[in-house]
Every structure is written in C-alpha cells, then in structure tokens.
C-alpha cells in the first residue's frame, strides 16, 4: 500500500512538473517521466500489454518526437519565461489542492466500498477481453480519431509553412 501511494505521489508530481515547468524541453522530459511511472503502475496492476505500449509509445516515441520538434523552435528569453511562470502560478495555485482533495476523496470511497467487479463475481470475461474481443466497433472510431488528428495537424501546419 505504501509503495502504491509513493508511486502515485511520484506520478502526480511528475505530471505537475510537466505542466508547470517554464521550459518546453523539461516539460517533454517530465511527460516521459510521468509515462514511465505510469508504466510501473500498469505492470503492478497486471496490465502488461498496456504497460508495454505505455513505455514504448508514450514514454519513448512521443517525447522523442516532442523533443525533436522543440529543438527546432526558438526558446523564450529569461524574462519572458519568468513572467510566464508568474502568470501560471497565479492562475493555477489551486491545482495541487484540487488534486489532493480528489485523491483523498477517491481513496476514502474505495476503502469504504469494496466492490467486486460484476465480471469477476459472475465469471464473465474480464475487462481486457471486453475491450479487445467484444468492442471491435470502437476500433473504427479510434482509427477515425487518429485520422482526424493527423488531418488537423496537416491542415494547420501546411498553412503555417505557406505563411512563414
């Protein structure tokens, strides 16, 4: 239990650092760190396939892409970064408080109500089976989401190049 709590605190800290840090490069590294910690959570919860995907794609490939794009941009000056940081702290001072309150509430709820999943109670297929074998229709939706994202990026960046 203590280890789980420690991992969760590390995960939230890495997430907050990713959002709050003034450097884009550090932010990308924070994202990789958060994904790596999330991978540990997944392995400990016996979600090995999800863990492998998280480690290879979210902690590996995506940060590499981010870092390579960020390296092409011009960084902010020290004053700009410092003003940006001040504004961000002013805006999001309540964020850690919300995270802690939500975390404690959810933890208390989970202690109070020990619900056994209906799938396990009734010997039905588990969640992984449901997601991979009974929900193929969602795959079509996920393909369209990916396509929409790629299409959107292509439209926005193409125009940028033309104007730049």
């Amino acid at each position, binding site marked *: 239990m203590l280890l789980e709590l420690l991992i969760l605190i590390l995960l939230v800290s890495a997430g907050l650092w990713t959002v709050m840090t003034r450097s884009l490069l550090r932010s990308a590294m924070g994202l990789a760190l958060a994904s790596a910690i999330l991978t540990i959570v997944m392995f400990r919860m016996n979600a090995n396939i999800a863990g492998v995907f998280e480690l290879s794609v979210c902690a590996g490939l995506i940060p590499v892409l981010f870092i390579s794009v960020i390296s092409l941009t011009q960084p902010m000056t020290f004053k700009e970064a410092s003003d940006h940081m001040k504004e961000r702290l002013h805006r999001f001072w309540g964020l850690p408080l919300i995270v802690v309150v939500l975390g404690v509430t959810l933890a208390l*709820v989970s202690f*109070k*109500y020990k*619900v056994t*999943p*209906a*799938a*396990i*109670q*009734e010997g*039905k297929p588990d*969640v992984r089976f*449901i*997601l991979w074998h*009974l*929900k*193929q*229709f*969602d*795959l*079509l*939706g*996920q393909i*369209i*989401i990916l*396509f*929409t*994202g790629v*299409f*959107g990026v292509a*439209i*926005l960046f193409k*125009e*940028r190049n033309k*104007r730049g």
Partner: protein
Amino acid sequence: MYALLVLVPFFSLLALNLPFRELNRRLAFGFAAILFLLQMGLVFIPDVYFWRVHLSFFANIFHFQLAADILSKVVLFCIGLVSLTALCVSRSLIKESEERFNFINIILLAVAGMNGVALAQDIFSLYVFLEITAVSSFILIAFEKDILGLESSFKYIVLSAVATVLMIAGIAILMFIAGSTNFSVIHSALLSQNRNLLLSLSIGLFLSALFIKAGLMPFHGWLPDAYTAAPAPVSIFLAGIVTKVAGVYCLIRIILSVIGFNDQLKGILLLVGAFSAIFGALSALTQSDFKRMLSYSSISQIGYIILGLGSGTALGVAGATLHIFNHAVFKSLLFVNSAAVESQTGSRDIDKMNGLAKQMPWTSLTSILGSLSCAGIPPLAGFWSKLVIIIALWLAGYKIYAVIAVLGSLLTLAYFLALQRKLFFAQPNDEFKNIKEAGFGLIFPAFFLAALIVGAGILSPWILSNFILGFNSLVGG
C-alpha cells in the same frame, strides 16, 4: 444498416483525398451537400434499400451494434441540416478553394463522429465517437489560425480534456460494476444494485463531463469564446449541432438508456437548467458583440432543454427534443444573419451599427423570425417546444421551474428586441449607409431556415402528436 451513416462520411473523405485531388476539390462541395441532404431524407424513411444494405466484410470486422430511435433520428436530421447550412455559408465566406476543401473534409469527419454518437448503444463507443467530434471541433475553431481562434481552441481542448478524464473515470467505475459497457447491461446492473456512493460518484463524474460538453452554466467557460472566435461557418456548425450532440443528446441518451430518472437527478437537472436559462439570458442582455450575444443565448436555450429533461416525464423529454430541433434551426439562422451582417459591414459590434433594415431587408426579415422563434412567440416553432416544456414542468409539479422558464423567455425577448432595435430599426448610421444586402450564398440558407421555422410552427400539432407517442415508450410514462 445504420453503420453506413458513419462509414459513408469517413470513406468519402478518404476518396476525396485520393489521386485526382484537383477534380475531387471541385466535386467536394456538391458531394457533401448531397450526402447531408440524403441523411436528412433517409432518416425518416425506414423502408428504403439503404437501411437493408448488409456489408458483411465490415460487419465481420467491426461487429456493429448501432440502433436509432425517435430521439436519434431527430438528432441525425439536425446533423444533416446544420452541416448543409454550414457548407452553403462556407461557399460564400471561405474564399480560397483549398481552405474550403479542408473545411469540407473536417466537417465530414465531424459528421461521422456525431452520427456515431447518435447511433451508439454502448457507453465506450459513445465516448470514442464523442472524441472524434471534439478533435474535429478543435481544428475547426482554430481553422483561421488567428490568435483568438487558437486561444479559444486551446481553452476548449483544456476543458474538453477535463471532461474526458471525468467521463473515462465514470465509464471505468460503471464497467467495473456492470462488467460490460453496453447500455442495457449497465442499466440492468444499476437496477439490481442498491444505490451506493460509488455508483453516485460514477454517475456524477459522467454528468459533470456532459455538462462541460453542453456548455451549461457554471461549466460554460469555453463556449462564448469558441463560438465568437471561430469563423462564421464553424460558429453555425458548433452552435447549431456540435454542442447539442456532444452534450445535450448524450445527457438525454445516458439518462434514458442507462441511469433512469430519480428525484436527486431531476433536482440537479432542474437546478442546472434553470441557472443556465436565466443567467445565460442575463449575460446575453449585456453583450454588444452579435456572435457573443448569440453564444450566451445558446447557453440559455440549452438550459431550457435541460429543464424539459429535468421534468422526468415523456412530455418533458419530447419538449426537450423538439427544442433541440428548433434551437438547431433558429440558432443556425441567427448565426447566418450575423455572418451576413459581418460580411457586409466588417463589424459585429451592435452598438456601432444602426438601422440596417433598409440596406439588408432579407437579413432583417429572417433575423426577426429567428429571434421571435427563439423568444417563444406563437405560432413560430420555438413557441411550441417552450410551451411543451413549461406544461411538462407544471404537470410534474415543478411549478417554480415553470415560472422560471417563462421568465427566461421574457428575458430572451428582451435581449432580442434590443438587438433588433439597435441593429436594424434605429436611426441609420452614416458609416453604413452604402452597404448592400448579403449575397445569395448567405440569403438562401437564411430563407430556407426561416421557412422551416414557420413551417414547423404551423405543423407543430402534427409533429407534437407523433413526438409524444414516440417518447412514451422511451421514458416509460
């Protein structure tokens, strides 16, 4: 085969981007227009061959589990109608053919997503198709790449991400309890379980996410900026249908098919609905930007829809659904009018422009019809849906909320009268003396929508009797 409503827009998009792109670019507008017209027509003709087509190749891979009842059909019709309107307006306002082609592509993706939402019978599929709609909306809001559009899109992304987290958490708990993500299985599991805190938490998380997506007060932060900053065809698309499908339709669907009504839920819906109806209207009263006023008006009208739903009766849900249709029509019309005014005067500032009725008579006429329908003046279409909602609230014993709904209507009338007086009927301003009426591309959709408002108003007794019959079986009342 209902899946065609998802597959056809998606594969059309792929086909349009294959070789012969130059030819495809010329055909895209006509193709998309026919597609949207067909969707509007086919939805209410159950016996055509289109619905019996069985694509075994796709069916074997994707195992479609889709269905459409009267609620889905109304929403599918509205999706076709508003998409067609946005498409027509884009022809006049998006001058570059490459940009217009891109706009049509994104609209097709958004339509595939919204059709999926309207047909889904599974809570996870609903979420996946909602995400398609959301991602398309982010791109559409930032379409012109100006600073306001990018900022509004970013704001929507952040709030949408919060909604996604809440929704995923809600789905996870529901799946944990029911062992499935199918609507009917979760509904049975919820009925068999005693209502406990964990269940209430999952439902609360899911509803909060949908309140954000619907732009209800106090979850509305993203909506006025997004509607105002987006290009005119996108504003029409967002205000006319996207918010309704992503927020309001999902809310009604989840309540009818999964959660079911109870006193606490009705209390929350009535409170949020009344708050949005009144404060949305009060905020609209103070706006001087035409589109921003319409944005707050949308929040107020969505509040009305939620009030109807909150009554918890078949009559109330029928009224809410009729108001979804009416709002899609009159709000699209009013956004077309604002686009016409902006394109001719170069401004949206109501305080700056006066007496445009003489120079823009058709825009003025259609905008009066849209405003009066929104304010619930008989015999226009908006009157009937508002009347049904108020009667449903009164009959269900929520008399205070019925009075609040009447008050909201009076406020709506107040801000639209102020708008009409300033914009079209005050002493003409010299600066705008030489402007002309907007072109055919903006006047035709405005006339079409205005005719729908009048036609639906006249045919309302027939529409209502068919609606209420359909909703008795859905609500079980």
